[in-house]
């Protein structure tokens, strides 16, 4: 057969594409369960990292998660648990953050730690190059940050990407997101030398200004809808 003819070329291309298509779908199907497990484990690791729990060598994250996260649920703007039937772990925070605050599903993960019960909530926002997200753990008084974990998709290494380092995120420990009169005020992320008066703040990353501002915006926009939930926690637990 003439290898330069149009018929040969078209048949050759079709067969090749078909073979490649079949091979790729087999590989995809075969590896899919393992990949989903990895993604879930990674999310679990991030949630636990907010409560300052890091897996030790040879310890499975799934076990650690099951051991610490005893309960998780979704609340609404009013701070009441909702019965939507959605698994809080499966909520797509990126999509939720684009909705009106009143329509968002707000997941809460209750985490038992050596320092008492912590309430972990997800946050999501925009950095310089792409999305940034994280998890923030609160003490059971509902206003003090116990720990925070941030991650990013593609911030500049060495600059904006530093938000995922403990050196940055541990600054949030112990910050109170409510002012003394009970108004939500979040935590400011500011340059050294520009510290605001009478408001909790942490230091931004030099050279990572846009990402740092992104963290500040992310915290205020993602945490504010939880205001009533935090207040109800405070009311429930302050007498203890």
């Amino acid at each position, binding site marked *: 057969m003439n290898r330069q003819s149009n018929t040969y070329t078209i048949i*050759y291309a079709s067969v090749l594409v078909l073979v490649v298509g079949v091979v*790729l779908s087999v590989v995809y199907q075969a*590896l899919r369960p*393992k*990949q989903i497990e*990895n*993604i879930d484990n990674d999310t679990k690791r991030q949630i636990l990292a907010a409560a300052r729990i890091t897996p030790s060598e040879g310890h499975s994250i799934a076990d650690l998660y099951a051991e610490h996260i005893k309960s998780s649920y979704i609340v609404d703007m009013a701070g009441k648990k909702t019965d939507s039937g959605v698994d809080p772990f499966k909520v797509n925070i990126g999509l939720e953050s684009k909705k009106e605050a009143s329509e968002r599903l707000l997941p809460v993960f209750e985490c038992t730690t050596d320092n008492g019960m912590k309430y972990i909530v997800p946050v999501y926002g925009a950095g310089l190059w792409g999305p940034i997200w994280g998890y923030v753990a609160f003490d059971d008084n509902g206003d003090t940050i116990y720990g925070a974990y941030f991650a990013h998709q*593609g911030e500049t290494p*060495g600059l904006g990407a530093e938000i995922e380092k403990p050196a940055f995120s541990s600054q949030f420990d112990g910050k109170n997101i409510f002012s003394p009169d009970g108004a939500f005020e979040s935590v400011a992320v500011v340059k050294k030398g520009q510290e605001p008066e009478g408001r909790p703040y942490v230091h931004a990353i030099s050279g990572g200004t846009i990402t740092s501002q992104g963290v500040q915006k992310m915290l205020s926009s993602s945490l504010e809808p939880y205001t009533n939930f935090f207040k109800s926690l405070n009311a429930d637990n302050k007498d203890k």
Partner: protein
Amino acid sequence: MNISKDLQALINPLSKDNPVIVQVLGICSALAVTAKLEPALVMTISVTAVLAFANVIISLLRNTIPTSIRIIVQLVVVAALVVIVDQVLKAWNYEVSKALSVFIGLIITNCIIMGRLEAFAMTNRPWPAFLDGIGNGLGYGIILVIVAFFRELLGSGTLFGCQVIPQWWYDHGYQNNGMMILPPMALITVACIIWVHRSRNKDLQE
């Protein structure tokens, strides 16, 4: 004679015919993944695997491929292999696949791969083509690892994520060079390697 020719296909790309510093191909990924050693190493392994298998497959098909669509056929084979590597990494080494993110997908556009397929695999039998793929993948990798070594050491003070610059240096005013983290320093480092390499190999000087 035949054996030495096969061996040449494997060894030449490591120095005399290095794809990065002599042919100046694959520069784009050399600057993208070399801020840290670990991604550089995984990138090396991935490119070597893709290149070796693509070379073998194209070499096996070389007598059947219609000339008019040969570049497309090469691309389809490379793209399929890259997707497989990406999926395997996601399943078995999720951490690294997260660190490399889009760069794995960009192996498809790595000029070294298309270059070797077109220049070598289309005209050689599978075994030499396989060796050529391994050789060029490693030749690319050597440069990547050297660049990543200097960038990670000087830029972050670490190697493979372990702190190697002692704390007392920092206490006495030493600072990590933030510039090393940024892409331009990868090119300058590559240029320094080319400088050293050329000055040692007089026959490569133009």
